């Protein structure tokens, strides 16, 4: 194996790890500031100028808290639960193309850890195992509220995965590839959102449900379940659960930007080339991710929580049939364009 390639990929992996964690940390700050702004408050402003050091203070607080394991808990599973949650949140970023090629030290550096030709399936694979962190943690706590949270989380995530997958298939049909890189490159002229607004809407709603974000945050519904699946967790184990949620928010915003909003493509791309293009591409991608994160937070502080039966009705009786019809129409249009009729 090429040693330089190995070093290059290792640096990229470490960088991605740090960026995901840093982004997640500052998203907590951003969310609190945004909530304060929406509710006409000041928000965190004690740690550093404008409270900018608040995430660090929170992190230190998390580490210094007592790490408690309930007596009747399944100790081993109780410990690995948050680990699985964080693991699945982090590994999705391996297949995301972060920008056009970068030229450094006489080498073409591809800003993607692994360009596998089934990238989008990999993402769905990781999403489908993401529920284990919550289920195992909730069950191992040996607490009825935790168990309720875990059960809600798993049924919700299984239900919304279907509509999400079907709406992503329309994108695969459009671009003719399962590789995320090919999907992004196929959108250099027109973004997929123009052709697939319905699929985007379904995908976005399902992404909110998969992330357990409001209005779908029933697994941690504090008014009914104390704290949901992480009721018994404390210290950095709780921190990992909360952190994993923000990391997945970051990653799924990136996935939505790739599938529907052209990834690192931006208008007027053809006027640039080389490293300028790469840096502008990364900036465009980051901006899109930021906008998605903002919208997700905005929704949390605007829309009240669903009831559980409403959630199931929305998933199975509205979103899934709608996404199937959308898939059928897309298929028919593509077949017509290829001269099948």
């Amino acid at each position, binding site marked *: 194996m090429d040693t330089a390639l190995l070093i290059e990929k290792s640096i990229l992996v470490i960088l991605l790890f740090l960026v995901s964690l840093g982004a997640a940390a500052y998203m907590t700050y951003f969310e609190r500031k945004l909530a304060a702004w929406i509710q006409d408050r000041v928000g965190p402003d004690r740690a550093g100028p404008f409270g900018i050091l608040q995430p660090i203070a929170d992190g230190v607080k998390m580490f210094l808290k007592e790490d408690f394991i309930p007596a009747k808990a399944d100790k081993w*599973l109780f410990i690995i639960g948050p680990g699985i949650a964080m693991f699945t949140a982090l590994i999705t970023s391996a297949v995301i193309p972060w920008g056009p090629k970068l030229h450094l030290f006489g080498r073409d550096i591809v800003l993607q850890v692994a360009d596998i*030709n089934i990238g989008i399936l990999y993402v769905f694979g990781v999403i489908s*195992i993401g529920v284990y962190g919550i289920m195992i943690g909730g*069950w191992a706590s040996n607490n009825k509220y935790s168990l309720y949270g*875990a059960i809600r989380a*798993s049924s919700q995530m299984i239900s919304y995965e279907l509509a999400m997958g079907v709406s992503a298939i329309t994108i695969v049909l459009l671009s003719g590839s399962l590789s995320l890189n090919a999907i992004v490159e196929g959108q250099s002229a027109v973004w997929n959102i123009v052709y697939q607004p319905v699929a985007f809407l379904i995908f976005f709603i399902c992404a909110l449900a998969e992330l357990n974000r409001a209005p779908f945050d029933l697994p941690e519904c504090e008014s009914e379940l104390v704290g949901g699946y992480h009721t018994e967790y404390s210290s950095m184990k709780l921190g990992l659960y909360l952190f994993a949620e923000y990391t997945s928010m970051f990653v799924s915003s990136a996935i939505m930007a790739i599938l529907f909003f052209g990834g690192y493509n931006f208008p007027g791309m053809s006027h640039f080339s080389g490293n300028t293009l790469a840096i502008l591409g990364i900036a465009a991608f980051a901006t899109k991710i930021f906008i998605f994160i903002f919208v997700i937070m905005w929704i949390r502080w605007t829309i009240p929580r669903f009831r559980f039966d409403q959630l199931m009705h929305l998933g199975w009786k509205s979103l899934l049939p709608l996404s199937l019809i959308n898939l059928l129409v897309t298929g028919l249009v593509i077949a017509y364009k290829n001269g099948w009729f």
Partner: protein
Amino acid sequence: MSLQIISIILGSLTLAAALMVVLSKHPVRSVIYLVVTFFLITSMYIMMNAQFLAVVNMIVYAGAIMVLFLFVLMLLNLNKEMEPVTAKGSQLAAFIAGGSLFLVLITALKDTLILGQSYRENHSQIGLVKELGNLLFSKYIVAFELTSILFIAAMVGAILLAKRENQIIE
């Protein structure tokens, strides 16, 4: 050579995880070991350059079916005291049935390649999604469509079984 070492490590891990499914006392832990086994099998598919099969195995088995298993087991909340005692006769029957299946598998697999040898010839593109799709939708189209009809029938059957009788009449 290194491929062979990796395959031996993966193989023994898979066997260990599969054994733990049977040996572990707690049903939830058994299911979790089964998930680990599926992951290790996924990694073996990747070693054989069958990326599509690997990811589908991860999504369908580890992601969907095992989540349902875990879901049901968590709801049942099996305790040792509540565990039904199996009769000695059926235990013996299970032992004989399982043993004969094991024998059949051993005889079926005794002529296969020794561990690790097949990985050297993994440069074929057959496991990649494009080739697989072309094959499925041309050569094996009849079998593929028949399988999907079978799935639909199973789904309809499951829904009918889950519905209560008066709901059907209505």
